[in-house]
């Protein structure tokens, strides 16, 4: 009985020593593929921007240092936009500057947006956060606004996502 157990242990050990090299090679290969991005399947996803239907995304473009998004105000009211920001999950995240121009009856640091109107948001000087030409980027856009005709002017937030390749031309 004891000799049978010994034989089994020997067989198991021999199996591991023989195939250990094979496991090691497979492990190293998979690690290398992962390191060089071959296992990053997200690049095969279609490019798109997902925003709430109340601020529908009409178009977008990602170029080196610049992000442009065209949104439509479908909320049914004129609004004032207080803040717009862009970020991503990288550490540190992407950093862009947004220069809003005061417009209409909104406060100095805000800008107006009429209902049913398209507005193009241009973020410039984008850097960091793996925002590299030719690479794929997933960006999160956050906007804070309030409706002009609501007496207490409560602030609301909406978030959207852009997933696309940063084109060089």
């Amino acid at each position, binding site marked *: 009985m004891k000799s049978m157990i010994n034989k089994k242990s020997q067989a198991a050990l021999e199996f591991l020593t023989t195939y250990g090299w094979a496991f090691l090679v497979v492990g190293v290969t998979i690690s290398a593929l992962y390191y060089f991005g071959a296992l990053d*399947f997200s690049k095969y996803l279609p490019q798109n921007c997902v925003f709430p*239907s109340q601020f529908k995304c009409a178009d977008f473009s990602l170029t080196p240092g610049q992000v442009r998004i065209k949104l439509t105000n479908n909320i049914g*009211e004129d609004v004032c936009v207080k803040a717009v920001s862009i970020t991503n999950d990288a550490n540190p995240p992407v950093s862009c500057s947004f220069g809003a121009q005061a417009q209409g009856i909104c406060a100095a640091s805000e800008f107006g947006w009429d209902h049913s109107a398209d507005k193009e948001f241009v973020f410039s000087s984008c850097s960091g956060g793996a925002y590299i030409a030719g690479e794929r980027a997933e960006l999160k856009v*956050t906007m804070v606004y309030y*409706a002009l005709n*609501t*007496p*207490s002017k*409560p602030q609301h937030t*909406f978030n959207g996502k852009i997933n696309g390749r940063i084109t060089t031309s």
Partner: protein
Amino acid sequence: MAESQQAKGQSALEYILIVAITFVIIVPTTYLFYSYSRESGAELSDAQVTKIGRTIVDTSTSIFYSGVGSKTTVDVNIPDSIKGARIIDGKELVFNMTTTFGETDLVFFSSVNLTTTGTNCANNVCKIPELGNPGVNKVKIEAVSTESVSIVVI
């Protein structure tokens, strides 16, 4: 004996190749479909909430102009992503929605004054937490006065 071992070796290699090719096809396909369905899920929730918001606001307007005492109920199917609803200034019906890329307010504007049961109202904000319960909910819409329409989940 050597031939038999060779045959076994060949079948083992073929087996490994078939399993490897299957994995190469299944893993990326699963990832792509999962990612795509996640975004479609967010768009579906958005469309559902837009329909609910418009139904409530349009029905409230209709009930308001039908006169005091008019009432009706509407069935709404609340998606999981909705965390609650509130009425601000009697004018804005706001749904708080959670998506994979953050929290979003979906706002619906009413031309008539909206309210709910008094206990849920403080200052100019009336909360309707029951509108955050996923699934089918019955919403009672009633013209409680010449000035406002009450929205209550029953």
